[in-house]
């Protein structure tokens, strides 16, 4: 890659790097949206409240607590205190002092992940009934209350980032044609010396692909660095020590795909342009 980063090639390099940066950043943003959506969905489906209707009194609460200990989907269960109930009401705009709050006959439970087809409420009510408790699940996973939103958001983020990445690929493809135009003299020389269209285009495409690889690596690395800074600013308590534990291998995919994608797009763009120039040089008239 003789003089590949000199003059116009430097401008092409940074054009490719910017496009790779934008594509990688879009991919990382999509991963962030995906993880937030997954977290939201897990939080939404992992919590329920059971209201104990019978038997009355503390016995009913104790029986319910005991039945819930072995109920399906339940990972933990704890009776709601008056203070906790007052705090929840306070969040909703109600201002009831804890001392004025009657003891609620509610049990908060945390749920294990279950498939959307599972009737979690029905299973819990059945388990309580087996323990002699009549109860109602008043907050539980429900497709009607925001169900499916996370999946739609995740799909939108994925396809949006793919579309954006393709657009950046087109920019890289076009910029690589500029490199081929810069190598027009080489195309002419090779054509005059009897190089086939494939040989000529391949030579130029190889150079463009290497340039794309380096530019994509630079763009991807910059996007990764920007993502780290964004995480440190956005997540309270996050530090360079804690970040590795938070990052999944798949989160790195956009950064790793940037050099590969840029190399492929640049190589393809340069190959197409060089082939066209070769055709022009090969046949006058």
């Amino acid at each position, binding site marked *: 890659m003789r003089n590949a980063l000199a003059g116009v090639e430097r401008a092409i390099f940074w054009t490719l790097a910017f496009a790779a940066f934008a594509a990688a950043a879009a991919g990382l943003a999509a991963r962030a949206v995906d993880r937030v959506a997954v977290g939201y969905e897990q939080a939404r489906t992992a919590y329920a409240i059971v209201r104990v209707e019978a038997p009355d009194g503390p016995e009913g609460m104790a029986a319910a607590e005991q039945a819930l200990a072995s109920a399906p989907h339940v990972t933990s269960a704890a009776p709601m205190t008056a203070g906790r109930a007052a705090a929840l009401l306070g969040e909703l705009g109600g201002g009831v002092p804890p001392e004025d709050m009657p003891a609620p006959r509610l049990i908060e439970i945390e749920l294990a992940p279950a498939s959307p087809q599972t009737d979690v409420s029905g299973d819990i009510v059945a388990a309580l009934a087996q323990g002699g408790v009549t109860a109602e699940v008043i907050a539980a996973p429900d497709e009607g209350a925001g169900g499916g939103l996370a999946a739609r958001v995740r799909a939108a983020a994925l396809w949006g980032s793919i579309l954006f990445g393709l657009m950046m690929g087109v920019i890289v493809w076009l910029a690589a044609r500029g490199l081929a135009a810069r190598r027009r003299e080489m195309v002419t020389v090779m054509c005059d010396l*009897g190089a086939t269209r494939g040989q000529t285009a391949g030579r130029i495409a190889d150079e463009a692909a290497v340039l794309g690889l380096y530019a994509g690596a630079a763009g991807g690395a910059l996007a990764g660095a920007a993502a780290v800074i964004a995480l440190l600013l956005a997540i309270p308590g996050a530090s360079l020590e804690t970040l590795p534990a938070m990052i999944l291998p798949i989160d790195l995919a956009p950064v790793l795909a940037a050099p590969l994608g840029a190399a492929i797009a640049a190589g393809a763009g340069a190959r197409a342009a060089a082939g066209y120039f070769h055709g022009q*040089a090969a*046949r006058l008239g």
Partner: protein
Amino acid sequence: MARPNPSPDLDLFERGVLVRLSGVDAGYGGSTVLMDINFEARAGEVALITGPAAAGKTTLTHVLRLALPPRSGRAVILGGDIRRARPRTIADIKRRVGYVAENPVFIEQWSTFDNVAMPLRLLRHKPRDYADDVQELVEFVGLGGAADLAAEKLSGAERRRAAIARALAAKPDLILADDPTAGMSPADGRRIVRLLAEMRRVGAGVVIASQDDSLAECAPMWVWRIDRGRLSAPEQTAEANDAEAFE
């Protein structure tokens, strides 16, 4: 001495006929530049195509270097009928043609050595196999001191010499030179033509297109005169292999 009109033949190349054009028309866009061209070049001989400016010399050179397909007639170059040949065959034939353009194109940032070695690189020869030969060739054309110089730093005359070295690098069967002495002093021009004509001794055919018909005095050659796209029958300046008569 006039040469008989060429006749069609399929194994021309094996009989030493490198080029045979029969009734060829060629041109660009809507204009026809060459009309009813009959031309022949043989191995071990030199042909000079001479005529006034815009007579069609360069266009004929383009036909001979397979860059301009004939519109009609029959063109057999290095054993291939170029009107019927596939692109790969055209490329194969081109590799056996050494071409010195009127304004040679180089890869400007590359050294003279690398530019001259380009045909060998295309043939996938290894640098260690061709380095000595290329260096010798560069020195042979008088550019020994400029071998490492980037092509963009060469003067006009040096570029022409470099183009000749590049044209000879792959030991082509046919050498074409389009106005190789343009912009040179008469002495330099004659030296260049003699240098090209020397290639006939290794069995190559040499075709030189030039406005300067006095170049015919440099070496024994066939002289073809072209005017307004029509080529007349050739004349021989001396016995084709009697080089000593000119030296």
